[in-house]
């Protein structure tokens, strides 16, 4: 199931709001119920105290004289109120007519204290009861103010009860009202919230449609959103950054493809011209042999270039297996230089060796040899006639450094790092097509990096070109 921000936002918010509303509603309900009960109990308490004044002790008899017409609530048929008077031993002395033959629960407590509690009334109706245990007033003491009533000889308990149907109904209505209001509020909130969220998420859909319009044919396009919300700014920014990187990568790839095409077209042109001219008229076997030899050379060059390109492709895809073993560096350097020594001598180059005791490296010998050969070849070819080549090997704690420099470079200092670009020919000034296809140093760079090392190139204004390799010891 797909998760929608909109859905989750609405559900989450509504859930929280519902919880808050439920808590608030319940709190309000309990508060109202408590206060209604208190009021109800206060009325009962007042009534039991009032009725208590009608209980008199006369001689040995306890009398309860009630003007029934003044208290019709004890007579009526509908939701009547009840009272019952007991002696201390629980004997009922008198009860309201509404009780008929029933009794109220006999509840006693401390003297002069009204005790309220919930009870079940006849006909199983719920109700509240207020009971007061007291010493009845003595007869003929009506005019005496009962400031401190004298302890009576007889204690009686009077209870008044009333059903709570009305109260319960009020509370039920309140609960229903609260529930309805709460539900309504949540519904309205949900609708409004969904609308707001939907509206506020509109830029997201806008963004999606803008992104949908992007394609690989026009990577120069950028996502421009008017009034992008702050939350989306970083997304748009990152996206545009990504587009820029893609654009650069695609441009590089395109120019690389153009370079490959160019590099293949030239030898193809050579092959084709050779074939066509050879076939243009009958020739001697020697002429055919020459043409075939030349064609084979071209095919070999093309093959080497394709292999180099494939190697670079595999290296970039991380598919080159390395074979690590201890390699004595200085011996390797000498071995790599050997094939170029003749060429250097013919060109009158001065070759200087400066070597520390660099010891051995844990590395892939064959790969390192290829990289070093390329670098030596580069130096031997690019040094000016009678110039100087310096080969240095320096030892450090964690790594060793090989620095190869030659004089006579025509590279501008800022162009030096570009010698590692595939097919880059800053040295077109010196090099014929087909002899060096401009992949050697790219491959050397890739190799050194594969071996865990670093390679850099610098050129000085006075024509010294320098390649520096830093290899880890193992």
């Amino acid at each position: 199931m797909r998760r929608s921000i909109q859905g989750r936002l609405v559900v989450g918010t509504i859930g929280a709001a519902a919880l808050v509303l439920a808590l608030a509603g319940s709190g309000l309900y309990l508060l109202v119920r408590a206060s209604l009960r208190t009021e109800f109990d206060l009325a009962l308490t007042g009534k039991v105290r009032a009725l208590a004044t009608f209980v008199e002790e006369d001689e040995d008899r306890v009398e309860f004289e009630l003007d029934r017409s003044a208290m019709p609530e004890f007579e009526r048929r509908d939701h009547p109120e009840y009272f019952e008077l007991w002696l201390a031993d629980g004997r009922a002395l008198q009860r309201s007519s509404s009780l008929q033959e029933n009794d109220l629960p006999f509840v006693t407590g401390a003297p002069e204290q009204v005790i309220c509690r919930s009870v079940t009334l006849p006909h199983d109706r719920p109700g509240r009861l207020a009971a007061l245990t007291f010493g009845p007033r003595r007869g003929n003491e009506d005019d005496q103010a009962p400031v401190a009533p004298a302890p009576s000889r007889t204690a009686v308990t009077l209870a008044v009860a009333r059903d709570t149907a009305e109260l319960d109904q009020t509370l039920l209505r309140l609960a229903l009202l609260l529930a309805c209001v709460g539900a309504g509020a949540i519904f309205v909130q949900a609708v409004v919230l969904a609308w707001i969220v939907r509206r506020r998420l509109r830029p997201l859909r806008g963004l999606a449609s803008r992104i949908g319009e992007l394609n690989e044919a026009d990577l120069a396009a950028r996502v421009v959103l008017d009034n992008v919300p702050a939350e989306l700014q970083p997304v748009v920014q990152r996206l545009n950054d990504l587009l820029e990187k893609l654009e650069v990568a695609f441009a590089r790839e395109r120019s690389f493809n153009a370079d490959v095409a160019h590099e293949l077209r030239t030898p193809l042109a050579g092959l084709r011209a050779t074939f066509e001219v050879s076939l243009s008229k009958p020739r001697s076997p020697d002429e055919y042999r020459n043409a075939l030899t030349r064609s084979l050379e071209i095919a070999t060059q093309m093959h080497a270039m394709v292999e180099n390109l494939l190697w670079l492709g595999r290296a970039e895809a991380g598919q080159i297996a390395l074979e690590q073993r201890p390699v004595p560096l200085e011996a390797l350097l000498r071995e790599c230089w050997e094939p170029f020594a003749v060429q250097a001598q013919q060109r009158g180059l001065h070759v200087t060796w400066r070597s520390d005791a660099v010891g051995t490296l844990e590395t892939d010998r064959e790969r390192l040899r290829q990289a070093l050969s390329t670098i030596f070849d580069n130096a031997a070819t690019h040094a000016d006639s009678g110039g100087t080549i310096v080969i240095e090997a320096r030892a450090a704690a964690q790594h060793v450094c090989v620095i190869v420099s030659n004089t006579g470079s025509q590279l501008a200092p800022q162009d030096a790092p570009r010698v590692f670009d595939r097919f880059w020919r800053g040295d077109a000034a010196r090099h014929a097509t087909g002899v060096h296809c401009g992949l050697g140093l790219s491959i050397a760079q890739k190799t050194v990096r594969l071996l865990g090392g670093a390679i850099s190139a610098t050129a000085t204004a006075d024509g010294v070109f320098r390649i520096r390799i830093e290899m880890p010891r193992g």
Partner: protein
Amino acid sequence: MHVLLVEDYAPVREAVAQGLREAGFAVDVAVDGEEGWWYARSGEYDVIVLDLMLPGLDGLTILRRLRAAGRDTHVLILTAKGTPPERVRGLDLGADDYLAKPFAFEELLARVRALVRRKYDAKDPVIAVGDLRIDTAARAAQRNGQPIELTAREYALLEFLALRAGEVVSRTEIWEHVYEFHSAAESNVVDVYIGYLRRKLERPDWPTLIHTRRGQGYMLGTGT
């Protein structure tokens, strides 16, 4: 006709030079930009076939310099850079034609021939001088309907004279357009070849075509 070929890639250079020579052109070759510029500046060429990515000096620079120096030699750019913007750039810098590598050699040859015709204001590949007809595409000549067998050098000489029919052409001009820069020919080689041509072209009963202008040179034409 004299062609300068500036191309650094040996297989193309050698094959094209051989093909052009076999097609009767005198071909000078330059292997890099500097050399190419030197030849272009100092020689009298009918067509320059110019590569663009050259060591030393790139082709477009040579072209620009050539035009800046007021030379109107016809230039055919022959390069692996074949996208429309690159072609436009080359043509706008003053090239006369553009051919992308790889190319069909026959097409290069035809384009070079077309540039030669353009140089001599000849639209028709067949040149007629009196009863002499020269098919520059087939490199064949006939007179009075009879084919004339010519060596490459003889044909080149005849074609050059025919393209400038009616004009007096000096020995130096003939030399410059028919012989390669490094050819080790004797100084009287032009006269010798004129002699060969006369022997093949002229008959006592036909009107004279090749006239000698003493002290000036030669003229191909029906007049005197």
